[in-house]
């Protein structure tokens, strides 16, 4: 019996010929990523009593959740991490002028097909877009990884999702993954891996694939993997010189179940408060007044996301009752958006541009909500109280829907404002 991609990667990482679902393995980690919570990790690491980290070349640390520091508490946290990085000689450290971890890891060549990557961030599933088994862990567990280079993992069962069909205008990967989450529900893939196949996935850009894998976390996925192809290798070519071995599923690989989608008639999808699996087509939500429109995040802050929003906003003005916030996912995206004129389009339309980072997505700073306010957001979570007041509402949508809604001051299908 053959193995699927997760099983192959975990077999390799644990030095075994084959592994099976529900088997517990000791996985050797190829990349260990932490952001601001590296402060918590380092505190716990020091308590273990191992003087040096297991491999200073395999740890990536960066700041993205609160950049620049929004409080004295965070400034102290950043300072402690900088000092730890220096004292341990951590080779891959990105300070406040880099971007969101899930954008920086691929951009800087840390996502290599076939590898095991762990991060102290739930959306670490994003890196499955490059054929990596990538999963989120807690800070204490990361401290143990820093000390030993390994962690126990249960080999997950895998759901296979096959997507075919051509997206209608203004519909894309965010709408698809919201629809899938709405169908499978928040815990539909808890403890499980997901593998994505089909013509639609093959034709998708790398950025769109990252959106799919990023949001797979919102149905509980432990890992979300897309088999690497020429596009993947082309993306990585200029970004890493390290050798890697992509893994592919055997023809007779086993899956817990297979689900098929055809996107030909898919409408833009909206995740309504306060659960990501509370998903409705835009036609059922259109017309709801909004106060804030947020474009950015590890889900949808990449160049193609800014491009589609700029196309909708070009030469127009955002509703006077809406605050639109735009956050490029990284400095690379920021620079490209500047070169292509998207940033000028945004400021001319009346949007506020914020430096690359997580911004208000997790309720830290840069645009929180007051009681009674409603936000249309390209981010990945709409939990009660996440973006400020517990009496505010967050609706999740694609960048195109966010831009169209910003123009009209209400949730809208992009076709309402574009030809």
């Amino acid at each position, binding site marked *: 019996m053959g193995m699927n991609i997760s099983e192959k990667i975990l077999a390799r990482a644990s030095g075994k010929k084959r592994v099976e679902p529900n088997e517990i393995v000791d996985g050797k980690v190829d990349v260990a990523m932490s952001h601001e*919570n590296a402060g918590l990790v380092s*505190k716990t690491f020091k308590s273990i009593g191992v003087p040096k980290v297991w491999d200073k070349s395999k740890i990536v640390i960066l700041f993205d959740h609160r950049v620049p520091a929004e409080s004295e508490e965070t400034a102290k946290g950043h300072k402690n991490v900088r000092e730890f990085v220096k004292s341990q000689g951590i080779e891959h450290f990105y300070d406040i002028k880099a971007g969101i971890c899930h954008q920086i890891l691929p951009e800087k060549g840390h996502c290599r097909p076939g590898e095991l990557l762990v991060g102290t961030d739930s959306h670490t599933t994003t890196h499955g877009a490059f054929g990596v088994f990538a999963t989120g862990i*807690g800070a204490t567990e990361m401290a143990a990884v820093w000390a*030993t280079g390994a962690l126990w993992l249960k080999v997950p069962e895998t759901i296979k999702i096959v997507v075919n069909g051509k997206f209608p205008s203004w519909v894309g990967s965010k709408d698809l993954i919201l629809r899938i989450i709405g169908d499978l529900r928040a*815990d539909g893939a808890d403890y499980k891996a997901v593998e994505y196949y089909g013509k639609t996935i093959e034709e998708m850009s790398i950025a769109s694939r990252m959106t799919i894998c990023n949001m797979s976390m919102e149905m509980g996925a*432990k890992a979300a993997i897309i088999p690497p192809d020429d596009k993947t290798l082309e993306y990585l070519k200029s970004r890493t010189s390290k050798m890697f071995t992509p893994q592919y599923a055997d023809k007779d690989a086993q899956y817990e179940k297979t689900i098929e989608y055809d996107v030909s008639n898919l409408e833009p999808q909206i995740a309504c408060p306060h659960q990501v699996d509370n998903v409705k087509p835009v036609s059922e939500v259109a017309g709801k007044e909004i106060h804030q429109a947020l474009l950015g995040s590890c889900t949808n802050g990449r160049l193609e996301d800014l491009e589609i929003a700029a196309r909708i906003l070009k030469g127009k003005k955002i509703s006077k009752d809406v605050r639109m916030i735009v956050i490029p996912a990284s400095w690379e995206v920021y620079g490209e958006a500047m070169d292509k004129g998207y940033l000028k389009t945004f400021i001319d339309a009346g949007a506020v541009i914020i430096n690359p980072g997580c911004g208000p997505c997790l309720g830290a700073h840069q645009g929180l909500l007051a009681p009674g306010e409603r936000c249309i957001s390209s981010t990945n979570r709409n939990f*009660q109280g996440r973006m400020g007041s*517990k009496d505010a509402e967050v609706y999740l949508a694609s960048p195109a829907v966010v831009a169209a809604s910003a123009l009209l001051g209400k949730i809208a299908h992009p076709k309402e404002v574009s030809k």
Partner: protein
Amino acid sequence: MSVKGRAWKFGDDVNTDVIYAGKFLPITEPTEMAKHAFEVVYPDFPKKVKKNDFVVAGKYFGCGSSREQAATCLKYAGVAAVIAESFARIFYRNAINLGLPILICPGVSKGVDDGDELEVDFESGVVKNLTKGTELKAKALPQFVMEILNDGGLIPHLKKKLAKNT
């Protein structure tokens, strides 16, 4: 070992933003974290929770972010265990790694109301509802998970292992 305490009842899909809001993440002291457990949505909880109380919930407790403060704040608020129908993967690992007992207990969301007095035996997994005079049984956790919990969490467990190897 059995523990008696009050049940704090929550619903399905309780997420880590609700348990420990993002604005409190820069806090580094666990006792300080405890003051903000559930604070934003359930402000009474950190004020009234007592040592050895239980958090009882439906399916998929602890979904969302990987922030382990969601487990730390409950542990340091005195919560003796989280008893739920099921847990989200990262919270499950974090709780075990931090030494916060969790019990997967089918039927607990129907069988326990907010404020009920519970007595929980961690060895047998028996959850007695003293208020209702009923009894439920939690599923056994895997042996290696119990070893981590019995050592008080992953770090004491790892230290013990490292000491053995030297």
